[in-house]
């Protein structure tokens, strides 16, 4: 009897999902913060008037970016929820396999043959399905992380552009510079979270 899903593997998978979820929570909180910061930046640009038109456009874009990011993160969270369900099923299967293996060892005669044939059927169907499902979920998660990382890169470009525009803000230049620096720092935090997410996903997926 083979058991490709050891409890240790499933446990490791679960811990990986928890790490991904923790990063997702950080990014979601930060995206909310960017949304508020962008709203304040839009008001500030309005007060600055003609000299901060470009900054205002970029602030609007950053607000849209925050909203898109929140949506993407909701999708990622849903994907990790699906992974938790699959890992839970794997853990259950792994426990059943372990107990069947013990039953096969202890049983004699016909009982042993019955357990062996049940185990063979399980190996061919249930476990192969779990493998496939887990691989599919992992691929989906990797794609979503890669897509979202690109979105974050766009946010970083917007923040840098806002910094340049702030320099043309006339009397409001210092305030606009301060706001754009905050954007840059905050989006930098998100980029670091995504580096962690990508690392967690690729490391364990490879394992």
């Amino acid at each position, binding site marked *: 009897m083979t058991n490709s899903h050891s409890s240790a593997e499933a446990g490791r998978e679960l811990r990986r999902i928890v790490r991904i979820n923790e990063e997702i929570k950080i990014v979601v909180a930060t995206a909310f913060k960017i949304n508020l910061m962008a709203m304040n930046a839009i008001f500030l640009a309005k007060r600055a008037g003609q000299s901060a038109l470009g900054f205002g456009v970029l602030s609007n874009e950053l607000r849209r970016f925050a909203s898109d990011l929140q949506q993407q993160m909701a999708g990622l969270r849903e994907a990790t929820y699906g992974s938790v369900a699959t890992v839970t099923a794997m853990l*259950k299967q792994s*426990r*059943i396999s372990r*107990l*069947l293996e*013990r*039953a096969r*060892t*202890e*049983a*004699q*005669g*016909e*009982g*042993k043959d*019955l*357990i062996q044939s*049940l185990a063979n059927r*399980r190996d061919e169907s249930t476990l192969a399905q779990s493998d496939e499902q887990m691989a599919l979920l992992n691929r989906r998660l990797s794609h979503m992380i890669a897509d979202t990382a690109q979105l974050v890169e766009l946010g970083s470009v917007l923040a840098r552009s806002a910094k340049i525009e702030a320099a043309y803000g006339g009397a409001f230049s210092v305030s606009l510079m301060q706001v754009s620096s905050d954007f840059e720092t905050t989006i930098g935090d998100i980029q670091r979270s995504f580096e962690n997410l990508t690392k967690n996903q690729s490391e364990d997926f490879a394992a």
Partner: protein
Amino acid sequence: MKTAHVIYEDGEHKWLAMVRDDTRPGFLVDTNEYLVVSDGDAILLDPGGSEVFPAVFSAVSTGFDPRRIKKIFASHQDPDVISSLSMWLEFNPGIKCYLSWLWQSFVPHFAGQEDTFVPIPDGGMDIMVGARRLQAIPAHYLHSSGNFHLYDPKAKILFSGDVGAALLPAGEDGLYVEDFDRHIRHAEAFHRRWMGSDKAKRDWCARVSALNIDMLCPQHGAIYRGADVQRFIDWFSRLEVGVLKA
């Protein structure tokens, strides 16, 4: 490894007791499982926890074809009683599990679909095994709030779940009670703590005293036979239960 003992046999009608697993880790409570066979049909009583499935399955297989087990009776919802349901259903997804209606939506957390469970109403019901009519006898609050025992009028055996249970030390763990006074010391603390209702206890004692019982088979410990059955019922009726004593 558990061993299967035939405790009653009359032609095609048999009771098997699967007891004493010497390979069981010490942190797991020891349990007895019983199989009632009649005319090729069989019901497994309190099949045990998941961890003892290998031992129970192996012991059952030595005396009976496990594919013919189509019914399971669960006296109540505890994990040492019924958490192996997942394994039995893995083996035979068509198995029906008879248990109190009260636990019908709780036990599926271990395993099973809606049609796996046959809810037993509070007043009890008959369960057919082959040509034999077994009776689910109410034992609510002893200790579980939805609790049944199973009586076989032909074999005169009462499966009594946790009632009559004893936590036996090594060396005093025979299949049958041989010295009642010595044995009952290992049952006293268990019954005081686990049996929660004095009224339920008195009701149960009156109910089972009216039955003709040759053997009282608990889920833990040794089996009471002959005069020890009534001796146990009398002892239990006098025992103060539902108390925590230091």
